[in-house]
């Protein structure tokens, strides 16, 4: 309530300094293009927002593809001295004893089982005794672990492409005599080329 006397306005000593908040910067420059730029009219916003949705979708597809093709069993152990031949009409590798044959020796799962040079020196097909014993032992071990199953008789030969046929045939027949008649040769898969 005010009295009958003259109203007394409260004097604010900072009234010249404190003003309502609003854009003021460079407003005093009396040029239109400066005003437009300051007020945000007429020019493009320099901050561009990047749409990440497509990028995330791509990453998700890549992750799913790689997870589907991921194998926890790791790479199949191939002797580093062996250069495998290439072939097109092939099948997938299965779990079986690996017999590696390089220019010097025969190995069963990495353990020496005979000499390639000895077979070459004899000059005729022969049974590789140590290989025979090792494969036979492996077969008996398998049978003791799986008494009610039929033995598949599969073994895989990793043979260097420069090894002569005599050695291949000798190892092949030795494996067959040891109870592994279904012998497979490991190869590198070659991409199919279209017929001429």
């Amino acid at each position: 309530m005010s009295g009958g006397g003259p109203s007394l306005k409260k004097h604010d000593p900072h009234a010249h300094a404190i003003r309502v908040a609003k854009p003021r910067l460079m407003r005093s420059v009396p040029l239109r293009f400066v005003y437009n730029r300051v007020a945000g009219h007429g020019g493009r916003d320099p901050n561009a927002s990047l749409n990440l949705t497509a990028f995330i979708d791509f990453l998700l597809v890549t992750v799913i593809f790689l997870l589907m093709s991921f194998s926890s069993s790791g790479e199949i152990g191939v002797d580093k001295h062996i250069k495998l031949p290439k072939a097109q009409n092939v099948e997938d590798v299965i779990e079986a004893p690996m017999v590696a044959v390089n220019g010097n020796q025969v190995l069963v799962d990495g353990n020496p089982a005979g000499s390639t040079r000895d077979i070459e020196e004899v000059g005729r097909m022969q049974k590789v005794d140590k290989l025979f014993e090792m494969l036979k032992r492996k077969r008996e071990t398998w049978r003791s672990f799986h008494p009610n199953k039929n033995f598949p008789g599969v073994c895989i030969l990793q043979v260097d492409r420069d090894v002569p046929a005599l050695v291949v045939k000798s190892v092949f027949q030795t494996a067959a005599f040891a109870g592994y008649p279904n012998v497979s040769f490991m190869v590198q898969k070659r991409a199919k080329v279209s017929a001429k």
Partner: protein
Amino acid sequence: MGGVDVGGGDGKKAMNAEINMIPFIDLLLVIVAFLLITAVWVSFSRINANAQVPGPPDPNKEITPETPQKVLHLYIRESEFGLIWKQGSTTVSESTIDRPEQKGDEIMYPDLAVKLGEEWKQHGGHQDVSDRKLDQAILHSDNGLKFGEIVAVLDALYSTKREMALKDGKREKQPVFNMTFSVR
């Protein structure tokens, strides 16, 4: 960035939440990097062979003489391949095809593959879809022949395929030949 609109407005406090996607993208990138590093890029495969070792005869079964099956004898010679179909000791057909000289590591015999396909269509004994047996091929080679050459011939041998009805009723393309080495 990703946001979730859960209403709000009408003077109330806005309920829109912004999800920070940066850690999620970082996680995805780390998974991609890990899987790429641990991936196995070299693919190994196998080519089948069969040593044809006969099992012991079943004493409960009566042995009946059977007509011998036709067998393809494939000879790898110096400058040609010899293809001889035999039924027992009788020669049914005989033909040859040139063996082209191969250089480098990429050994292939596409002409041999075509010829083997034609020969099988003419003489193959197991061509019916329900027949699960394969025609036998015996490979004769010089003892000094390199294994790379043998695999190239095997590759040509297994290039001819036919439809075969499997035990579960499905049909699958299978090679028409099963290979073994000549013992001599």
